[in-house]
């Protein structure tokens, strides 16, 4: 097709597809952790205590203005170097993560800062009436957060969550810089081995496009279903 050889590529199809799957997996776990971080930070930002609000706001401002690749390098190269020169051996070992886990942590930190803003808007969007109703029933702050604020927030927050997931999935391509065998890494390796630039990058591009398109369609479907049940 088009006078190009597609056989090599076809023979490596499993590698390419595993790379794609790995990217999805990293993004999913990263998103889950980012949600936890984002929720905590969001509640901290809307709390009454200044000692919670200021660090939370600083975290969000700082992380959102630096490159994800830098965070990745910091965790993969920076932290281990520092850990081994400063900490006792046992402790330092824990902080040295492999490529995949480093990526997950980086995505969690980066995504967490963005989700913190999303959740903050969601929290503020929950009408005071509901919170006051909870308080008048005698629920504690924590219980209100869990049984009142959270469920109401979910519907407004879902679209942004979905979009963040798609974003994080695209960001997994950066993990190639620390030798994680996700799709971009696999493609680049194939290219340096076979020089079949056009075939390789076209297929990689198509795979990413199809995946992001499918994810977006899935998101729209979920949004519509949620609307019917709430």
């Amino acid at each position, binding site marked *: 097709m088009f006078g190009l050889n597609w056989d090599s590529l076809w023979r490596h199809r499993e590698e390419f597809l595993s790379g794609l799957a790995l990217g999805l997996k990293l993004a999913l776990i990263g998103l889950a952790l980012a949600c936890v971080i984002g929720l905590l930070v969001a509640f901290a930002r809307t709390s009454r205590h200044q000692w919670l609000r200021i660090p939370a706001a600083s975290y969000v401002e*700082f992380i959102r*203005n*630096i*490159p*994800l*690749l*830098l965070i990745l*390098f*910091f965790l993969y*190269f*920076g*932290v281990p*170097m*520092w850990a081994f020169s400063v900490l006792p051996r046992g402790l330092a070992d824990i902080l040295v993560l492999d490529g995949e886990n480093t990526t997950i942590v980086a995505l969690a930190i980066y995504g967490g800062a963005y989700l913190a803003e999303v959740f903050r808007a969601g929290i503020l969007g929950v009408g005071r009436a509901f919170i006051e109703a909870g308080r008048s029933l005698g629920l504690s702050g924590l219980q209100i957060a869990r049984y009142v604020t959270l469920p109401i927030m979910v519907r407004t927050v879902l679209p942004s969550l979905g979009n963040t997931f798609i974003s994080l999935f*695209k*960001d*997994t*391509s*950066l993990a*190639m*810089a620390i030798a994680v065998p996700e799709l*971009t890494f696999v*493609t*680049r390796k194939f*290219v340096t081995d076979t*020089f079949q*630039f*056009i075939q390789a*990058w076209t297929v*990689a*591009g198509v795979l*990413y*496009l199809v995946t*992001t*398109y499918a994810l977006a369609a899935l998101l729209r479907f979920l949004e519509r279903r949620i609307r019917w049940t709430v």
Partner: protein
Amino acid sequence: MNPVIEEFPLLLQGVAVTLQISVLVIISGSIFGLFGGLGLLYGPSWLRALLRGYVDIVRGLPLLITIFIIFYIPPALDIEVSGFAAVTVALSIFAGAHISEIVRGAVASVSRGQNDAAKALGLTFWPRIWNVILPQALPAIIPPWTNTAVEMVKGSSLAYLVSVSELLFQTYKVVGRTGAAMPLYIAAALLYFAINLALSRAGVLLERRIRYTT
């Protein structure tokens, strides 16, 4: 702290390259985006379809893939591409796609009556856009545009992967030489933070100035 102070000039060299890339990209991306957004709204149907395809494809791909495609495919067609050129072109295309969407949304939100009134006075297309539509669309364009500009500064760090010595690559090289990972990466982070903070501030000031005259 010492290694940071000693190596700071090298880091600044990296900052210079980062800024070069960023400025080129923001300017060209904004020009693409302006015409792209207007084309999406007012163009003939073939142009709208083309632009729609371009925007949707570029936004669906990871930025890194776009960079690699521009870096690797032209040589296969016997065209020389430097890392700097590839990153700049790829980021411009990326920014252009995002800004096209921003412009399209902002211009579409200007009420139809404004266009009618300008037409009724006898203005042709470009004078209408320049004098009536764009000034009213600007307040809605500037905040997301500033956001895109910040994303492009961050995106310039991907130039590392095509061997361009912007800030991240410089930092990485210096760390390799001196071993002082923590302070150097933190310094790099602070430098990116400073650049983007300044950019965001500039955006806020721009917004304020526009609002005053609107």
